[in-house]
């Protein structure tokens, strides 16, 4: 089999007389070996290094022949051959034929048909080296371990914020659903009264029985507030939340929360 393979190698109609020494590889390994090339540039670089060719003065005929041998091998073992390899074949042959043209009187570096190929080969070789160096740099997760001690996740006991708008919106929703609009018109005055109702209840809760006049701070509170305070007491009595007692006419009037024991 091996000999058959060797014999069938033809490069663009020319049968190659001999195969490079390094191609004698067990057939099983051959595929793996050829697959190891990252592309035509990689293969060319390999050939140049393998045969100690001068990259700055490439013998095109030799390199092209070597390259074709490999490409034919790849074809022979039905390795999926990327179009890139065939494109490179064409390029190599074109360079080779341009080299055969009569040279102009003065040779300028840029006129060398190989210049572009050499530039690409050198650039690719630099990238290959750079990739190897990058691969060797210590990496987090492989060679670098980052400190990650435990800590108790405290819930930063954040309280929900409530804006006035949200509160009003909630109240509006309550009313909309309950259709309370006609029965529960609440104005500024009423809100004040309700606030004072709560204040008075709190006071009664704390002090038990309170004398009526003690609920009024006539010195510091304005008249409006005193009136609201009085209205709150009336409303509390109306809603049955307080009890108002007086032993006899003109004796002190006492207020008591309706729930309190004494």
């Amino acid at each position: 089999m091996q000999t058959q393979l060797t014999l069938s190698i033809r490069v663009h109609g020319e049968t190659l007389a001999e195969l490079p020494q390094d191609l004698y590889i067990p057939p099983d390994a051959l595929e793996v070996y050829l697959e190891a090339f990252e592309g035509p540039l990689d293969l060319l670089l390999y050939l140049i290094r393998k045969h100690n060719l001068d990259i700055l003065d490439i013998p095109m005929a030799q390199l092209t022949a070597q390259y074709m041998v490999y490409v034919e091998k790849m074809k022979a073992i039905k390795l999926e051959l990327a179009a890139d390899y065939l494109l490179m074949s064409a390029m190599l042959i074109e360079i080779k034929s341009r080299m055969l043209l009569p040279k102009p009187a003065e040779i300028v570096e840029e006129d060398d048909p190989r210049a572009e190929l050499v530039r690409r080969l050198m650039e690719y070789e630099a990238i290959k080296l750079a990739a190897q160096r990058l691969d060797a740099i210590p990496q987090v997760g492989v060679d670098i371990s980052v400190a990650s001690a435990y800590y108790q996740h405290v819930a930063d006991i954040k309280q929900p914020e409530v804006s006035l708008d949200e509160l009003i919106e909630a109240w509006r929703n309550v009313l909309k659903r309950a259709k309370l609009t006609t029965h529960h018109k609440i104005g500024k005055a009423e809100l004040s009264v309700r606030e004072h109702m709560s204040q008075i209840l709190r006071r009664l809760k704390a002090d038990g029985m309170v004398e009526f006049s003690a609920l009024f701070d006539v010195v510091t509170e304005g008249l409006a507030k005193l009136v609201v305070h009085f209205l709150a007491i009336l409303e509390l009595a109306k809603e049955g939340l307080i009890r108002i007692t007086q032993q006899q006419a003109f004796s002190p009037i006492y207020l008591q929360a309706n729930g309190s024991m004494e």
Partner: protein
Amino acid sequence: MKEPENIIEMKQVLEAALLTAGQPLSLDDLLKLFAGRMERTTLRMLLDELKQDWAQDNTAKTLELVQVATGYRFQAKPQYSEFIARLNPEKQPKYSRAVMETLAIIAYKQPVTRGDIEQIRGVAVNPNVMRQLQERDWIDIVGQREVPGRPSLYATTKHFLDDLNLRSLSELPPFEDFAQTEMPLEG
């Protein structure tokens, strides 16, 4: 690096592994560090020593080595948790609709019982809702209504006014302000 040869080097290998593990390491895990050249009893002894090393000179250390169910771990001392939590601020929590409506009813209709609130909202009041508002110190009980069961009367607190930046309840927009559009004034 060659295999650790003395107690100090062994403790350093343990320390480096525990500080970077990101999870508790069991004794079995930690034995792997020494590729079979470590006795379990020695390992326990080393861990005890390491724990003591970090407990010494106490105020200078920000971490402590502790043993939990699944193994050993280094953790920040509790007093730093509060600061570390600031790195990942949690989302601003929100009160549920039930809480907000209950609060609105108490604010506008105080003093009210739970029964009043239920009647207005048309649904039962979850005790949890009242508890949230009480724990926030936004409502409190100001008395009882003299009806069977003597239900508590709720009102908003000064603290509630402070938090909403109000001086008095009368600074709440009166209901008419937004009821007018829905309901023409009575003729």
